[in-house]
């Protein structure tokens, strides 16, 4: 397999209110192969979401390199990272983050609105049908159940035909009975779409479904019990 994500010597810190810097991530090496489904386990506040944001290009690392599909994203301008994100990355949020002003189908279309494949309206319908919401196209998020909202979010994350799907605790806000189906849906659709998947979670049971489980505490050199600089 070829590495889709290749991270080397990645460091990220945040400025603290009192002025000092807090080192959150120090990852010497991390890779995800093409089509691989990886679960990242870590404690809350351990830097999981920060790692996803760095991979997605929403944050810039302090040092190190992030190479995705052969492109070093931390060398791109902000606009370049935006374009890269729109065309390469799908994102499923813990809180779904559907836009309340838009219907289910419009939320899915938003997932392809900022990339190059802007006008594949039929795909939005196909994706919603695939997640079982073929009769909820014109429902607004407030009219959908929590599980349905997460399904819409999954459909949206795949709308732009990404190469990598980042899922940030996708089942954290879903009731346990729906969590399995949501997770199954993510994994299955990623396989069908040949999309690599990186899911962060703190639930070992969920992680056990994935091809590979990585513990952030093991790949991150920062000791979060004492970390500050």
């Amino acid at each position, binding site marked *: 397999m070829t590495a889709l994500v290749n991270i080397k010597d990645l460091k990220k810190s945040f400025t603290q209110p009192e002025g000092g810097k807090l080192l959150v991530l120090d990852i010497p090496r991390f890779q995800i192969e093409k089509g691989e489904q990886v679960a990242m386990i870590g404690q809350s506040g351990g830097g999981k979401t920060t790692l996803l944001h760095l991979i997605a290009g929403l944050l810039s690392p302090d040092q190190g390199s992030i190479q995705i599909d052969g492109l070093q994203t931390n060398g791109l301008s902000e606009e370049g990272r*935006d374009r890269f994100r729109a065309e390469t990355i799908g994102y499923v949020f813990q809180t779904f983050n559907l836009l309340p002003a838009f219907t289910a189908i419009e939320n899915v279309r938003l997932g392809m609105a900022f990339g190059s494949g802007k006008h594949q309206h039929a795909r939005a319908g196909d994706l919603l049908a695939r997640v079982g919401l073929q009769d909820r196209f014109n429902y607004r998020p407030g009219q959908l159940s929590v599980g349905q909202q997460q399904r819409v979010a999954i459909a949206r994350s795949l709308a732009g035909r990404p190469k990598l799907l980042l899922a940030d605790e996708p089942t954290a806000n879903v009731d346990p009975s729906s969590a399995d189906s949501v997770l199954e849906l993510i994994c299955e659709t990623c396989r069908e779409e040949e999309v690599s998947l990186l899911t962060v979670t703190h639930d070992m049971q969920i992680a056990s479904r994935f091809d590979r489980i990585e513990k952030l505490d093991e790949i991150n050199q920062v000791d979060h019990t004492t970390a500050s600089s």
Partner: protein
Amino acid sequence: MSLIHIAWRNFCHRALSSFLTTFSLALGVGLVVLVLSIYGVISEAFTRNASVGYNLVVGPKGSPLQLTLNSVFYLSQPIENLPYTEYMEFLPKDERASMVSRFGGDPKLAERDGRYAPYIAGGFAIPLALGDYFGEFRVVGTTPEFFTKLKHGPNVDEDFTFSQGRAFSNFSPENSYFEAVVGARVAKEMNVVLGEKFYPTHGDPSGHGHALGFTIVGILDPTGTPNDRAAFVNLEGFYLMDGHAKPIERDPEEDREDVLDEAVDAEESNEEQPETESESDAPTTGSIVPEITESNGVRLVQTESNTSDSVSDSTNGTSEGQSSDQEFRLISIPEREVTSILIRNGNIMFAPGMQNAINEGIRAQAAAPIGEINKLMNLIVGPLLTALLAITGITCAVAAVGILVSIYNSMNDRRRDIAIMRALGARRTTVTSIIIFESFQVALIGTIAGWLLAHTAIVLYSGKIEEQTGVQVGFFTTSNYEILVLPLVLGLALIAALLPAWAAYRTDVGSNLSA
């Protein structure tokens, strides 16, 4: 999904706030459009009214604007009067001779063309005599030519037409010299009908009533000109009313006027008629011997010839305290005065030369009504419009601030939405554009709604506007300036959107996604 569609969804999502913001802008735009439309109506009304088939108004020396206002618009007070001989200067020799023969006057007046007659060449000169009122409306003494020579309408090519009756004639067996035509508005507001007689009041609407009445023989169709607001009477009948003939008894004041007359005559004679240099306008001897008496307020002038002009007042003579066989004889030229003269040059190229020639004279002035109205518009109406536009512009600016406040206040709720869109690949410029599009949508809808509101109001009052000004306005009657409203409002909306757009641009994705 286009950015405009995304902006529209955001607009709809905050429906109440969007509606109130848009509505306040619509009111501002509506006011601006109303002001522009009213200005357009006023401009057109003045321009149309000043374009009724003549190109110059001649009257006594004084303010040309006042001359235009009182002779064209029947507003303001007449400056003074001109001797009838001044009017005769616009007539060719044969017409002057006919007048001398008919009315009586200095025979030498008949021996030459009028000084300005060559300039008229194919045009016309119509005398007006003002000073009386019918209710609040001006009474205009004139000749029947007023209704045949003058035109009106947007292209100044429409003849005067009558909803009832006909134009008055110089003389009719049944009404003598006392026929009248009233404008459409006069007929409506004074509630008069054909065949009714009215008695003009002298000097102002509450002045003393003349003893002689005029029989209404015609009611004009609406023309959209000040003529709708006037009652036209036969000039000869006008002269026959008490106090309307210029006294010709000798007194020092008149002697001074005669000196002036002689100076004018001398000036004229130096150019064209040197042989009349030493002659006076005053009637002397010969065929005309005016014999002036007063009887029941009626000036009777007896002439020794031309008996066709001697008639019996058979209409309602007793109501005026006159005997039914009362004879009216036309007054002589020296007793006649005109307030102004409407001139149409046969060849418009002659107008400037004639205007200069008249203005160089001692007694009369010639004014171009359209020029005077343009001056009035520029001096008074223009600044007034500017002030009104400034006020309504401020209203629009306040509405634009409303847009700013509305969108900016929504930014707190929308930071997360913006962060989500950024996470989905939207660039900073994309989310900034969405905010600006939202502002533009408010501006566009507000402008269209305001325009519709204003034009609906105009259409609702179009009947009243047409009645008052004669200007026909429809839903799509627009001012030239209205085309500028949308770009200006869009400009304001852009300015209003800058601050929230900047806030959107600076939205931190990471912190807002986690929020």
